[in-house]
Protein backbone atom coordinates (compact mmCIF):
# COMPACT_ATOMS: atom_id res chain seq x y z
CA UNK A 1 0.00 0.00 0.00
CA UNK A 2 1.97 3.05 -1.22
CA UNK A 3 1.42 6.31 0.59
CA UNK A 4 -1.11 8.66 -0.96
CA UNK A 5 -0.32 12.33 -1.39
CA UNK A 6 -2.50 15.36 -0.69
CA UNK A 7 -1.52 18.79 -1.94
CA UNK A 8 -3.42 21.86 -0.77
CA UNK A 9 -3.10 25.39 -2.06
CA UNK A 10 -4.42 27.79 0.57
CA UNK A 11 -5.21 31.25 -0.77
CA UNK A 12 -7.72 32.74 1.67
CA UNK A 13 -7.15 34.55 4.93
CA UNK A 14 -10.51 34.77 6.64
CA UNK A 15 -11.64 32.71 9.62
CA UNK A 16 -14.16 30.66 7.67
CA UNK A 17 -11.65 29.80 4.94
CA UNK A 18 -8.91 28.91 7.40
CA UNK A 19 -10.59 25.77 8.73
CA UNK A 20 -10.81 23.66 5.57
CA UNK A 21 -7.06 23.49 4.78
CA UNK A 22 -6.13 22.55 8.35
CA UNK A 23 -8.99 20.10 8.86
CA UNK A 24 -8.39 18.36 5.55
CA UNK A 25 -4.62 18.28 6.07
CA UNK A 26 -4.75 16.96 9.62
CA UNK A 27 -7.38 14.34 8.81
CA UNK A 28 -5.52 13.15 5.73
CA UNK A 29 -2.32 12.93 7.77
CA UNK A 30 -4.17 10.87 10.37
CA UNK A 31 -5.22 8.54 7.59
CA UNK A 32 -1.64 8.09 6.45
CA UNK A 33 -1.44 10.61 3.64
CA UNK A 34 1.70 12.56 2.88
CA UNK A 35 0.47 16.17 3.00
CA UNK A 36 1.85 19.49 1.87
CA UNK A 37 0.14 22.87 2.03
CA UNK A 38 1.22 25.79 -0.13
CA UNK A 39 0.16 29.09 1.42
CA UNK A 40 -0.13 31.97 -0.98
CA UNK A 41 -1.79 35.40 -1.10
CA UNK A 42 -4.11 35.83 1.85
CA UNK A 43 -3.51 32.21 2.88
CA UNK A 44 -0.22 33.48 4.30
CA UNK A 45 -2.20 34.91 7.19
CA UNK A 46 -2.78 31.35 8.34
CA UNK A 47 0.92 31.03 9.06
CA UNK A 48 1.18 33.93 11.50
CA UNK A 49 2.10 33.07 15.09
CA UNK A 50 -0.67 35.24 16.44
CA UNK A 51 -3.76 34.42 14.46
CA UNK A 52 -6.24 37.24 14.21
CA UNK A 53 -8.47 36.08 11.43
CA UNK A 54 -11.74 37.83 10.81
CA UNK A 55 -14.95 36.88 9.12
CA UNK A 56 -17.89 38.92 7.88
CA UNK A 57 -21.25 38.20 6.35
CA UNK A 58 -20.71 41.28 4.20
CA UNK A 59 -20.31 40.03 0.69
CA UNK A 60 -21.00 36.52 2.00
CA UNK A 61 -24.72 36.06 1.46
CA UNK A 62 -24.25 32.32 1.98
CA UNK A 63 -23.25 32.73 5.62
CA UNK A 64 -25.97 31.49 7.99
CA UNK A 65 -26.99 34.26 10.38
CA UNK A 66 -29.03 33.95 13.59
CA UNK A 67 -31.26 36.71 12.30
CA UNK A 68 -31.37 38.58 8.98
CA UNK A 69 -29.34 41.79 9.02
CA UNK A 70 -29.59 44.39 6.24
CA UNK A 71 -26.40 44.66 4.23
CA UNK A 72 -25.93 48.36 5.11
CA UNK A 73 -25.98 47.44 8.80
CA UNK A 74 -23.44 44.65 8.21
CA UNK A 75 -21.07 47.36 6.94
CA UNK A 76 -21.22 49.44 10.11
CA UNK A 77 -18.11 49.87 12.30
CA UNK A 78 -17.68 47.07 14.79
CA UNK A 79 -19.93 44.61 12.94
CA UNK A 80 -17.04 42.58 11.57
CA UNK A 81 -15.47 42.19 15.00
CA UNK A 82 -18.81 41.20 16.45
CA UNK A 83 -19.52 38.63 13.77
CA UNK A 84 -16.03 37.20 14.17
CA UNK A 85 -16.56 36.89 17.91
CA UNK A 86 -19.93 35.22 17.38
CA UNK A 87 -18.45 32.70 14.98
CA UNK A 88 -15.61 31.86 17.36
CA UNK A 89 -18.08 31.45 20.20
CA UNK A 90 -20.19 29.12 18.10
CA UNK A 91 -17.18 27.02 17.16
CA UNK A 92 -16.25 26.65 20.80
CA UNK A 93 -19.74 25.77 21.95
CA UNK A 94 -19.98 23.07 19.30
CA UNK A 95 -16.69 21.49 20.27
CA UNK A 96 -14.87 22.38 17.08
CA UNK A 97 -11.12 22.59 17.46
CA UNK A 98 -9.53 26.02 17.41
CA UNK A 99 -7.37 26.99 14.47
CA UNK A 100 -4.29 27.04 16.66
CA UNK A 101 -4.97 23.48 17.76
CA UNK A 102 -5.65 22.23 14.23
CA UNK A 103 -2.52 23.91 12.96
CA UNK A 104 -0.47 22.42 15.81
CA UNK A 105 -1.86 18.99 14.99
CA UNK A 106 -0.78 19.48 11.39
CA UNK A 107 2.72 20.44 12.47
CA UNK A 108 2.84 17.42 14.75
CA UNK A 109 1.69 15.17 11.92
CA UNK A 110 4.59 16.51 9.85
CA UNK A 111 2.40 18.23 7.29
CA UNK A 112 4.82 20.27 5.22
CA UNK A 113 3.87 23.93 5.14
CA UNK A 114 5.29 26.11 2.43
CA UNK A 115 4.97 29.87 2.18
CA UNK A 116 4.91 31.36 -1.27
CA UNK A 117 8.03 33.50 -1.40
CA UNK A 118 6.62 35.81 -4.04
CA UNK A 119 3.53 36.81 -2.08
CA UNK A 120 5.50 37.06 1.16
CA UNK A 121 7.55 39.73 -0.60
CA UNK A 122 4.54 41.22 -2.38
CA UNK A 123 2.49 41.84 0.74
CA UNK A 124 5.57 42.52 2.83
CA UNK A 125 4.91 39.80 5.37
CA UNK A 126 7.65 39.46 7.95
CA UNK A 127 8.82 35.82 8.04
CA UNK A 128 9.56 36.30 11.74
CA UNK A 129 5.80 36.61 12.31
CA UNK A 130 5.27 33.10 10.97
CA UNK A 131 5.29 29.94 13.05
CA UNK A 132 8.48 27.87 13.09
CA UNK A 133 9.19 25.13 10.64
CA UNK A 134 7.85 26.89 7.55
CA UNK A 135 9.64 26.46 4.27
CA UNK A 136 9.68 29.09 1.58
CA UNK A 137 9.24 28.33 -2.07
CA UNK A 138 7.60 29.09 -5.36
CA UNK A 139 4.95 27.53 -7.54
CA UNK A 140 7.43 25.51 -9.59
CA UNK A 141 8.83 23.91 -6.47
CA UNK A 142 5.38 23.10 -5.17
CA UNK A 143 4.47 21.47 -8.46
CA UNK A 144 7.08 18.83 -7.82
CA UNK A 145 4.84 17.52 -5.07
CA UNK A 146 1.49 18.65 -6.45
CA UNK A 147 2.18 17.03 -9.80
CA UNK A 148 2.54 13.67 -8.13
CA UNK A 149 -0.30 14.08 -5.68
CA UNK A 150 -3.38 11.89 -5.65
CA UNK A 151 -5.52 14.74 -4.42
CA UNK A 152 -4.81 18.40 -5.08
CA UNK A 153 -7.10 21.02 -3.63
CA UNK A 154 -7.36 24.73 -4.28
CA UNK A 155 -8.86 26.49 -1.28
Amino acid at each position, binding site marked *: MSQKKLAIIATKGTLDWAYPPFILASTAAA*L*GYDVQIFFTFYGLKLLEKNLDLQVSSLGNPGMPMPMPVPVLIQALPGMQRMMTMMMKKKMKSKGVASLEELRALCVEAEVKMIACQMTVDLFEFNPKDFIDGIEFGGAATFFEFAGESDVCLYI
Partner: protein
Amino acid sequence: MANYDQVLDASGFNCPLPILRAKKALTAMESGKVLRIIATDPGSVKDFESFAKQTGNQLLESGEEDGKFVFLIKRVFCQADR
Protein backbone atom coordinates in the same frame (compact mmCIF):
# COMPACT_ATOMS: atom_id res chain seq x y z
CA MET B 1 -17.76 -5.04 25.91
CA ALA B 2 -14.55 -6.81 25.06
CA ASN B 3 -11.26 -6.04 26.78
CA TYR B 4 -9.34 -2.90 26.08
CA ASP B 5 -5.98 -1.48 27.14
CA GLN B 6 -6.56 2.25 26.99
CA VAL B 7 -9.46 4.68 26.98
CA LEU B 8 -9.81 7.88 25.02
CA ASP B 9 -12.70 10.14 25.94
CA ALA B 10 -13.43 12.44 23.00
CA SER B 11 -16.82 13.53 24.36
CA GLY B 12 -17.80 17.05 23.38
CA PHE B 13 -15.36 17.17 20.50
CA ASN B 14 -16.48 17.34 16.92
CA CYS B 15 -14.86 16.37 13.62
CA PRO B 16 -11.97 16.03 13.09
CA LEU B 17 -10.85 15.88 16.73
CA PRO B 18 -12.08 12.34 17.61
CA ILE B 19 -10.11 10.90 14.69
CA LEU B 20 -7.04 13.02 15.32
CA ARG B 21 -6.97 12.20 19.03
CA ALA B 22 -7.50 8.51 18.29
CA LYS B 23 -4.70 8.50 15.76
CA LYS B 24 -2.36 10.08 18.29
CA ALA B 25 -3.28 7.59 20.99
CA LEU B 26 -3.01 4.60 18.68
CA THR B 27 0.39 5.61 17.36
CA ALA B 28 1.74 5.53 20.89
CA MET B 29 0.32 2.06 21.53
CA GLU B 30 1.86 -1.30 20.81
CA SER B 31 0.59 -3.44 18.01
CA GLY B 32 -2.22 -5.68 19.18
CA LYS B 33 -3.39 -3.35 21.94
CA VAL B 34 -6.96 -2.10 21.96
CA LEU B 35 -8.14 1.49 22.35
CA ARG B 36 -11.63 2.27 23.66
CA ILE B 37 -12.96 5.55 22.32
CA ILE B 38 -15.98 7.43 23.65
CA ALA B 39 -17.43 10.15 21.47
CA THR B 40 -20.53 12.31 21.26
CA ASP B 41 -20.08 13.37 17.65
CA PRO B 42 -22.60 11.41 15.55
CA GLY B 43 -20.31 11.80 12.52
CA SER B 44 -17.69 9.76 14.34
CA VAL B 45 -19.52 6.51 13.62
CA LYS B 46 -18.82 6.71 9.91
CA ASP B 47 -15.51 8.45 10.47
CA PHE B 48 -14.12 5.59 12.52
CA GLU B 49 -15.28 3.04 9.97
CA SER B 50 -13.40 4.97 7.28
CA PHE B 51 -10.46 5.47 9.57
CA ALA B 52 -10.14 1.75 10.20
CA LYS B 53 -10.53 0.95 6.51
CA GLN B 54 -7.89 3.45 5.44
CA THR B 55 -5.29 2.95 8.15
CA GLY B 56 -5.52 -0.80 8.57
CA ASN B 57 -6.26 -0.49 12.29
CA GLN B 58 -9.08 -2.85 13.16
CA LEU B 59 -12.49 -1.58 14.29
CA LEU B 60 -13.53 -4.37 16.64
CA GLU B 61 -16.73 -2.86 17.93
CA SER B 62 -18.92 0.14 17.28
CA GLY B 63 -21.93 0.85 19.45
CA GLU B 64 -23.74 3.12 21.87
CA GLU B 65 -23.58 3.31 25.62
CA ASP B 66 -25.32 5.80 27.90
CA GLY B 67 -26.21 7.99 24.92
CA LYS B 68 -22.60 8.18 23.72
CA PHE B 69 -20.85 6.37 20.90
CA VAL B 70 -18.27 3.81 21.88
CA PHE B 71 -15.65 2.22 19.66
CA LEU B 72 -12.99 -0.42 20.14
CA ILE B 73 -10.04 -0.13 17.82
CA LYS B 74 -7.13 -2.55 17.70
CA ARG B 75 -3.76 -1.19 16.78
CA VAL B 76 -2.35 -3.04 13.81
CA PHE B 77 1.09 -2.24 12.52
CA CYS B 78 1.00 -1.53 8.82
CA GLN B 79 2.54 0.64 6.12
CA ALA B 80 0.08 3.49 6.59
CA ASP B 81 1.62 4.27 9.99
CA ARG B 82 3.71 7.39 10.43
